């Protein structure tokens, strides 16, 4: 048998050696032609197309890219609010209760955990760091939540925890990209772009995908985390300003009436249209669309983006203070946007990178301060969505880009001045709530240190597959043709997390 295999291998090699450039060119004559035939024979039915005077085939989608589309199957949710804690919060101080870890506090980290591993900053043998928060069980589901999140612990029965999430990137930028686009490298569309591309948006006066940031900084990975990658640029996230006017120049300049503005825009669009008829460049269409969208946004945006008119009890619920940049304001805006038919609202809150290098980055002080900033608003968001019935068909996702180590960080081999944890890819907690989610469930079990998931591990792709499923997509069939192959948000991976589905 072995000899036979050898013979075949030899045959294969000699066949290859005998292939010359001429053979290749000869093959090209017939086979490349065949390749060109393939799409004609097996291609999908093309979209209905419109022929422009310039002879360009355009689908209805090109002309009106944000028009609503039916999902492939009935989705449980129609919008997503994604709360991304940029910097990665510590699961060990919030949700993943590890009493065993407390017993090991300040002891050397067992060799077994370090073998063959690389950490972002930890070098040599670090000390273990016990949980710095007090945990107790909450709600009917008995979920463990620490005293860092006293408000949130009252609504645990609304959410599903994923406690053994894992990723493969231990630096913020790539990990955030991975979490948002399914790939740690640049160039892929974000989750929000995929969804907006697939479903369009309900409210034609507002963008389909809005991004709001807080915490003083935007995510390390930059705007690519809400970019559209290879999808048409109209599907990228629209970042609104966190302070002052969310969108600039919405007011008509003094002396210019609404009608006059309308005339100006239709004149510009007319010129653009003539240009388009002449050259057929679809980017001109994008421009026409943008002008029209900008004009329509003037009607809706001032009302939606203004939280001043919200009643007092709502401000109290969220802890909002109009005018300043805060996660609370963004949460309230997120609710208003979803209520107004925006497809995806992405919130980034910066400041969760608790290495223990300073007070703000410490597990016992800085992290508490960050928790205080989000605890009330995110709890209020869930309750507000619930009382309005929006939670029926809105998904709320909470999480960072990775987790934190059960070890005390020892940057450059030195003892840190504050308690801190390094980046950790093997286990972290996220939660999901809303349409189609099994309330009060928990999936994923980590080992006694909270170092690795031992059961029910879920990957970033699994999460994406599940979110797409809830929006009405089969993640394996939702593709976009680019550079000669169909691309998916979940690449070639991802399995539905059935256990958290209602």
């Amino acid at each position: 048998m072995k000899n036979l295999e050898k013979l075949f291998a030899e045959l294969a090699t000699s066949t290859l050696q005998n292939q010359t450039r001429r053979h290749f060119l000869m093959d090209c004559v017939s086979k490349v032609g065949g390749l060109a035939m393939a799409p004609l024979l097996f291609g999908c039915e093309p979209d209905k197309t419109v022929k422009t005077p310039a002879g360009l085939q355009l689908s209805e989608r090109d002309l009106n890219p944000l028009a609503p589309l039916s999902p492939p199957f009935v989705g449980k949710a129609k919008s997503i609010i994604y709360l991304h804690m940029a910097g990665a919060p510590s699961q060990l101080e919030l949700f993943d209760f590890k009493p065993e870890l407390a017993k090991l506090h300040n002891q050397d980290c067992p060799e077994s955990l370090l073998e063959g591993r690389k950490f972002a900053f930890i070098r040599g043998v670090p000390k273990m760091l016990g949980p710095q928060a007090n945990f107790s069980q909450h709600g009917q589901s008995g979920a463990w939540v620490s005293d860092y999140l006293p408000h949130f612990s009252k609504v645990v029965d609304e959410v599903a925890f994923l406690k053994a999430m894992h990723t493969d990137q231990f630096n913020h930028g790539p990990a955030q990209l991975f979490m948002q686009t399914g790939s740690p490298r640049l160039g892929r569309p974000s989750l929000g772009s995929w969804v907006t591309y697939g479903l369009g948006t309900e409210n034609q006066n507002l963008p389909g995908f809005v991004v709001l940031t807080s915490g003083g900084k935007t995510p390390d990975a930059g705007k690519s985390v809400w970019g559209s990658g290879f999808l048409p640029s109209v599907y990228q996230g629209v970042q609104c300003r966190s302070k002052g006017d969310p969108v600039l120049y919405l007011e008509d300049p003094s002396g210019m009436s609404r009608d006059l503005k309308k005339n100006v825009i239709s004149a510009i669009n007319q010129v653009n249209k003539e240009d388009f008829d002449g050259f057929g460049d679809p980017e001109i269409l994008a421009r026409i669309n943008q002008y029209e969208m900008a004009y329509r946004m003037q009607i809706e945006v001032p009302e939606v983006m203004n939280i001043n008119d919200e009643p007092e009890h709502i401000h109290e619920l969220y802890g909002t203070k109009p005018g300043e940049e805060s996660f609370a304001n963004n949460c309230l805006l997120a609710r208003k946007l979803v209520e107004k038919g925006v497809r995806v609202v992405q919130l980034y809150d910066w400041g969760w990178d608790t290495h223990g290098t300073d007070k703000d980055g410490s597990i016992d002080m800085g992290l508490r301060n960050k928790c205080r900033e989000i605890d009330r608003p995110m709890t209020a968001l869930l309750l507000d969505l619930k009382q309005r019935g929006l939670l029926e068909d809105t998904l709320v996702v909470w999480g960072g880009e990775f987790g934190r180590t059960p070890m005390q960080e020892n940057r450059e081999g030195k003892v840190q001045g504050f308690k801190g944890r390094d980046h950790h890819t093997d286990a972290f907690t996220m939660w999901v709530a809303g349409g189609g989610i099994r309330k009060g469930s928990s999936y994923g079990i980590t080992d006694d240190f909270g170092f690795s998931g031992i059961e029910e591990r879920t990957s970033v792709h699994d999460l994406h597959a599940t979110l797409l499923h809830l929006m009405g997509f089969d993640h394996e069939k939702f593709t976009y043709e680019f550079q000669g192959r169909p691309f998916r948000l979940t690449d070639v991976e991802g399995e539905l997390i059935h256990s958290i589905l209602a």
Partner: protein
Amino acid sequence: MLDFILPLFGRFHPLLVHLPIGILVFGIILVFLSKAGQNTHFASIRLAFLLGGIAAAVSSVSGFLQYQYEGFEWESIQFHLILALLTTAVSFWLWYQLNRGETLPPFFKIKSAVLVLLLTMTGHLGGNISRGENYLTEILPLDLQSFLGIEIEPEKGPQLLEENWENAALYSEVIQPILNQNCKSCHNPRNLKGELDLTTMNGLLAGGEDGLVLTAGDATHSELYTRMILEKDHDDHMPPAEKRQPSKEEIALIEAWIQGGGKEKGTLAEAAIPRKLIEPFIARNEVPFYPVTTIPEMAADSLAALKLSGFFAEGVESGSGLLKVSCINFPGFQDSDWTMLAGAKNRLAYLDLSGTKVSDSILDSLGGMPNLTVLKLNNTAITGKSLEKLALLPHLKLLYLNNTGVNLSQIQDLTSSKSFEKVFVYETPAAGEISNAGKLSLPFLVESGNYTLPKLATDTIVY
């Protein structure tokens, strides 16, 4: 007394059918061996066609009798029978032609070739009836089968019911389906790879060419189990790396079964199988959210017309005839505008009229919509008068009345409905009444909201 004669004769059909095939094929071979102008085989050819024709007739009669007595369906045998009669007729016709001269008639080779074709097709159809249509294709490699365009129905794994999964038989309802799904394609009575048949208990106990695969009570010495848990790239790993791999629950179930003695009898409860292992196999009785209808998809131009009038409109899923319609960009919608939607009345499954200028009289129009499942009337001038009309909607599940004038007694009037699941009455007179009334016993959930979060010391402590 002699009733059995005819059915018995019918049962000789599988034997008799070989006679015409053999005799006629022999004759036809002689036809093709004959050289022009020579008549060496002529007499034999003539005899062959006569005998072949008679044999074909006898076969046809026996076949017909078998059809009569053995309960075959006409649909399944009709073409076989018609072709058989045609074969018989053509045989006799050719014999008749041969009888009229002393040399082969013109075009006789072509005519013979037609007879071969008829014979082959008749025989093939007969084989399909007795052996099944996939008799020839099922032993082909799966890749080749799918290349030939044969749809391979995947084996279904275990399927258990939520209500009585504990009483399901461990071997026949769980283990054997797992084996069928993962092993059967290579280890079945027809395709005995490694001399191993994993489709029956007997096969499992018999083992394969290397001996037994099952050691009752000891999974670590049962190859059935150990080869599944080898590293995927190990030479002995089963199923082969390129095939479907069993899930960890499936492997754990096989282990548990072997440990428990590998018995044919016994239920899941008796084997103390934890619920977690069988969770993936419990059929979820998913009731579709929207009603199931046969309404065809809305024509693209009518849908476009709806959108043009200002509605947000799309199918609830692609290909569905049911619609989701919202007035999110149509705040000026009023009662009289209903005419625009009336045509699509039966299609509306989700209707959002929030923030529009509708009044109580819109409820008259809304009544009698057969498929309406979600209705949103938030932020409208609805006072709740004649709200009970909505209880007549057969499929309405979610009703949104936030920030309207409805009161509690009007909500209570809705209890006659069997389909309601949730009613949202945040910021209404009803919400206030509910907070005073305390616990309500209604057949659906009423969400009155007004949530508050207490002020905690930790809200203000800055560390």
